[in-house]
């Protein structure tokens, strides 16, 4: 693979195949921990660590793992990395650990990670897999940071509160507390996806369907019509 090919593995995750805004994967952490920019950044980096680690190990073991137990093996490897991140954050960043709470353990079922394992790491060599993990992780982190920034600025009139680079907006700014709630998360994500569509002059994705789901291959479709379409190979 040429140098340009390697670069592509990294950059595709940033914009063109951005897992959050284009792929619509990993919605739960995207909505749950982005009410503060700091938490969004922490979640993004933690996920990136797990993604790079699991891509690396799965790519190394791609010839050893038999197809029949692929899924359980991947899940165990991913959960192992998640627990390591959990230990490290608990020891070195206890405040972030506390504010991420259960969602830290739930990185295990973030479909971006399982999706990259199924679609990329199990078919590619180690270096491209690491680059793919870095790129996808960075794309996820950037999207989360964008959502977190919008929600924190509109909801709390601060940005990156609790860090040395914290910015406090003038006191007169209205604080729209709706943006700190789950409803605000849904709304911000919807508006950002629409904005991304306008900027790239592309239509926003038509729907969050099984197409984006890493389990799609095993799933036979959710409605009778979909099942028919799948059988005919039109989906």
């Amino acid at each position: 693979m040429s140098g340009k090919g390697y670069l592509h593995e990294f950059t595709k995750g940033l914009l063109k195949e951005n897992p959050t805004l284009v792929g619509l994967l990993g919605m739960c952490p995207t909505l749950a921990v982005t009410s503060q920019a700091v938490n969004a950044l922490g979640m993004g980096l933690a996920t990136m660590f797990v993604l790079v680690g699991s891509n690396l190990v799965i790519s190394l073991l791609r010839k050893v793992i038999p197809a029949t137990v692929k899924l359980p093996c991947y899940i165990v490897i991913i959960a192992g990395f998640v627990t390591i991140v959990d230990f490290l954050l608990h020891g070195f960043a206890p405040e972030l650990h506390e504010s991420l709470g259960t969602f830290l353990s739930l990185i295990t079922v973030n479909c971006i990670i399982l999706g990259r394992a199924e679609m990329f790491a199990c078919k590619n060599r180690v270096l491209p897999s690491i680059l793919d993990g870095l790129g996808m992780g960075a794309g996820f982190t950037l999207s989360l940071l964008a959502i977190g920034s919008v929600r924190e600025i509109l909801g709390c009139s601060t940005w990156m509160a609790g860090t040395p680079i914290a910015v406090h907006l003038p006191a007169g700014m209205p604080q729209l507390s709706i943006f700190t709630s789950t409803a605000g998360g849904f709304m911000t994500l919807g508006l950002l996806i629409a904005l991304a569509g306008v900027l790239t002059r592309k239509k926003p994705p038509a729907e969050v369907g099984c197409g984006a789901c890493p389990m799609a291959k095993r799933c036979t479709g959710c409605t009778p019509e979909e099942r028919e379409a799948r059988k005919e190979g039109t989906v």
Partner: protein
Amino acid sequence: MTTLQTIVSIFLASLLTDNYVLSRSLGICPFLGVSKKLDSSLGMGAAVIFVMGCAAAVTWPIYQLLQRLGLEYLKTVAFILIIALFVQLVEIAMKKLLPPLYRALGVYLPLITTNCAVLGVTINNIDDGYGFGLAVWNAVCVGMGFTLALVIFSGVRSRIEAADVPEMFKGVPATLVAAAIVSMSFSAFSGMI
């Protein structure tokens, strides 16, 4: 707090005030992916209630065992592996023993392994310190809350499809903004408990 009070408050919390989908943002992928039609919402909901209840019943004793061995930190690994294996077992057993039920629910089962609400409810059961009975009850109630959110949202979505949405909001953005409004309406329940 008496046991009865706990049972009722778990029920109300997981359906209304603390709905996993609409206020805790768990299980969003199936919420957005499967809520297009009412019948698929009901099917997915039933499958999730079943798997959540069983997952809670299976993981609770496992955690007690891990605790006795001093290996609590293995809970994420153990739980997700057990849920994944359990879902596959149920799929195989259902296909052989109860074909009609399999036709109705089987298609949703593989989707559930990566549904973060299932792993989330088992971990929250441990964090909240519920006993076995309450843990299973909590899981079933959370599943019912999930179904409620899906069913309500499928109704909203059928209206969006008929509505005239601005070009840039067509598709996912409109769905997400509608989800925001549904979630907002549920926030009116906060304060009940």
